[in-house]
């Protein structure tokens, strides 16, 4: 079995938003829709204050509340753990969005472009099917699938890896198969201390945060 997961190494992330922008490029998301984004968090009070940059997005939970609540079965889970949305089934009720504890889902009701009218690059990639429905990070499943078809290794070969991971200039983001004990992600998790966001909710996120070595 394969279970794709992502790792964000909080020690490395600098909050530059390169992944945010790369995701927007690769997935042609409309303005203000950020399937991947990086939070700029402050904890504590001056002068004992820490600032931490935290990449967030769909956590591709093993037990995804969004999927359970979805009335149309538009949200599904693949055998490899990737949580998907069928834009042709989705009714846009946004129930998934309020069920998601990670604020990972977006719904854009009408076409929106950077400067009002679509630019050539936006027109080229405009997909009316994306409006009025829920959208979110796909772990770039199309890239993963296309890469696998070519015999590439997701998380290692850029052409089989998510755009955010490819773009990261701090090597903070990693992607791979957690079921493969020899994989990059399995090794990182074996060597480092980690947590998952809101683990107490029992969603079993497929997104791990490294914070220290073991």
């Amino acid at each position, binding site marked *: 079995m394969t279970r794709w997961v992502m790792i964000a*190494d909080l*020690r*490395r992330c*600098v*909050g*530059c*938003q*390169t992944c*945010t*922008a*790369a995701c*927007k*490029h*690769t*997935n*042609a998301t409309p*303005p*203000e829709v*950020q399937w991947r*984004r*990086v*939070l*700029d968090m*402050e904890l*504590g*009070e*001056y*002068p004992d*204050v*820490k*600032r*931490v*940059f935290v990449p967030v997005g769909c956590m591709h939970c093993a037990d995804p509340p969004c999927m359970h609540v979805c009335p149309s079965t538009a949200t599904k889970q693949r055998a490899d753990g990737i949580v998907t949305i069928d834009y042709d089934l989705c009714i846009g009720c946004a129930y998934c969005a309020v069920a998601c504890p990670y604020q990972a889902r977006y719904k854009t009701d009408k076409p929106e472009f*950077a*400067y*009002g*009218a679509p*630019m*050539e*690059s*936006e027109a*080229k*990639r*405009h*997909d009316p099917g994306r409006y009025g429905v829920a959208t979110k990070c796909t772990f770039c499943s199309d890239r993963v699938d296309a890469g696998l078809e070519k015999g590439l290794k997701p998380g290692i070969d*850029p052409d089989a890896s998510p*755009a955010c991971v*490819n*773009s*990261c*200039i*701090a*090597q*903070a983001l990693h992607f791979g198969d957690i079921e493969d004990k020899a994989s990059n992600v399995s090794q990182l998790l074996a060597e480092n201390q980690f947590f998952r966001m809101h683990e107490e909710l029992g969603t079993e996120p497929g997104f791990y945060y490294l914070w220290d*070595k073991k």
Partner: protein
Amino acid sequence: MKKSEPARIEKKATYCYQCVAGPDLLTVKVVDGVATEVEPNFAAADIHPGGGKVCVKAYGLVQKLYNPNRVRSPMKRTNPSKGRDQDPGFVPISWDEAFDTIAKKLLEIRAKGLTDDSGYPRVAASFGGGGTPQSYMGTFPAFLGAWGPVDMGFGSGQGVKCTHSEHLYGEFWHRAFTVSPDTPLSEYVISCGANTEASGGVVGVWRHADARIRGMKRVQVEPHLSVTAACSSEWVPIKPKTDPAFLYALIHVMLFEHPRARLDVPFLLHHTASPYLVGPNGFYLRDPRTRQPLLAGALEERATREAIEIGADDEVLAQGLLEGETAFAKLLAHMKPYTPEWSAAICDVPAATLRRIAGEYLDHAHIGETIVIDGMTLPFRPVSVALGKTVNNGWGGFECCWARTMLAALVGALEVPGGTLGTTVRLNRPLSERHESVKPGPDGFMAYPLNPTDKAHWNAKPNIRNAYRTLVPLAADGPWSQALGPTHFSWMFLGETPPGLPRVTYPELWFVYRTNPAISFWDTQQVGERMASFPFVVALAYTRDETNHFADLLLPDQMDLESLQLIYIGGSKYIEQFWKNEGYALRQPVVSPRVDARDFSDIATELARRTGLLERYNASINRGTAGVPLKGASWDFSLDTARAHSRDEIWDAVCRAASAELTDGRETHGLDWWKEHGLRVKPFPQSNWYLFPTLAAQGLRFELPYQERLWRVGQQLARRMHENDMRWWDNQLAEYQPLPAWKDFPKLWETELARIGGKTEDFPFWLLTSRSMQYAWGGNVGMQIIHEVAGNVAGHGGVIINAKRAAELGIADGDAVEIATPAKSVRAKAVLRQGIRPDTLLLIAQFDHWATPYARDFGVPSLNSLVPMSMNLTDATGSGADVVRVSIKRSVAS
């Protein structure tokens, strides 16, 4: 995404040099002729020290290409009145008419003479900072070279607002126009405001992330918790502009509270000026016959020798049996008062913290250890001190740079593996090779091309309006020097030229490219008013903006993804960009131009043709102005100088010469090959990162701690100026000291506040700025995607204020506030954060746009609108700092 498969997908390799921390490498995905995505250049992962990646700015390029707000054709002004409140009335014209108009002006100028009655060039040109525009302006430098004198000293922020002291003193002391820790080997970095995670580019971010995982400790010393402080082991919130006191205390602790053996005594003794004997008048004791300095055998020694002491203008101050003490002994006496307790009272950092940091620095210095690099055994000293902007320019910059370099020298961590490295030269020649710029100079130190200050050679009459050759010896006189002078003086002196200088005149024609001084300089209102009086302005224009609002002609050049140029990559350059490879990369059109724009090379060629300069222009390209000499040892791709060549002809020749240069003539690939492959490199030895072995091989010493040469120069300059009845530079002349003393630097700003009618207690905040990685240098303020993603980083939407202090002032998060000096005020939205000192406010980046489409709707102010251009706040290198005392209050409207 549409589900139907696109007919044709291409990935075109190119480079991004939108900021000084580049260049970085990328590919652009082109689907059916439409550029859709930017990706890293994965093929370059092994040769680029940042994994072949590009930062967030590059992801704005697709919008930059298709931005509907682009200037779509040449335009001319129809409203002769210029002013912020005037509609320029730009109307489209043909390229032919545009070239005709410019050529006519240029030919008129040539007929009158290239310089005016004051001796200043009639043509001026301003480009954006850090040399980045040169990576987009094709062969325009060849046109400027062919033209003759051009005033490139009208500042837009580069130089004086950059790490200016570092540029000048750094290059003087260790060929360090820019300075970096040897991050790949570093263990301990004290960073006074060096905002590496925002300004170090892809390579800086990449390397520092690796270093963190490796266990490097970085202590970030700055008034606000920047992204870099966030990523550091420790944040020390220091009071603004007191960094010299912080650094001096570290030196004090190392000199007086630790055994001498914890310092690198052999390094100090053999590779610095520490053992030089200083005479009673403060000059070196010299051998009466050879006039060479006399050295002691130990660091701390008093000795009486048969010697002479030579003063500023070669006068003999003393001779005979003279008593001297070593420069190191002078240093000890000088640093004695600067105790941690003294420092703590000034910089608001506890004495215990200062002692701990000094101790940790020594703990990590690995005194005595070596490392083998490229077969060479070199000292291994993985500690360094990094300085940021505002720390490093304006008053106090000299003291910080000196202290930083001294901290490196004390433990032998200067220009050795793990230590403090200079990473590029821009004032010494050759610009391309630091090591070749190391030549023996006076007294056993490196030569430096100081502007002359002796009676026979001092330039009483400046060559350009900012008078850098007259006022700033350290600015040297190379191609970069004009922009490294006091470039605000060009603007200020248009109003009133100080006594002794020829009256500063308006240039008759001003080229502007990839720069927006009406936003990016200080006192932007005054800069705008001056611009409005420029008689003829030619702006290479991407969109309308605040500077080209005053232009007479707008020329749209093809933007980043439409145009063509080959540039040098790798080697050792800018900040963290030191590679293990060097070579060239091509920027190529990924799509056809989307507006009626021309490639800058074609524009340059046409200007040369129409002004009769074609032969000199082509000859300049042949000599290498386009980045590579076209004639080499066994190859010659020189252009026929008699005729105009197309862009592709020129760059094909450049590509062939570059291929030949990289392969010693074995390969001569032309433009088509480079378009397909994008780049080519050869190895650049890591040992070339370190200057120490080169100095040691030539028997040269680092000119530290004692600054006899600069002191002499300062005295000479003072005499020259006073001889010419120029007294307005006296404060600056006081900066030339053999050992820099602490002055109350914050007080300078308070005094300036009082001068313009403000009381310190009424303007209790220090307003600072900080780099935005998303925007800095990028000319991308009109990009929606950049605005969107930058919004995720705190502070892009307003002024950052300490949350507790804000509460005391009745200011809530999101409130409209007014930030004011006695002269001006701006409005902003309050952004409440914990990570900032209660006495400090922060405005990130440089906004306050009023003409640039999209950006003019941000409603975010800029520090530049509040900071004055001030002689009093200009230091001896001619720079100032982005600091101003302000008040803040909740806006009535909120």
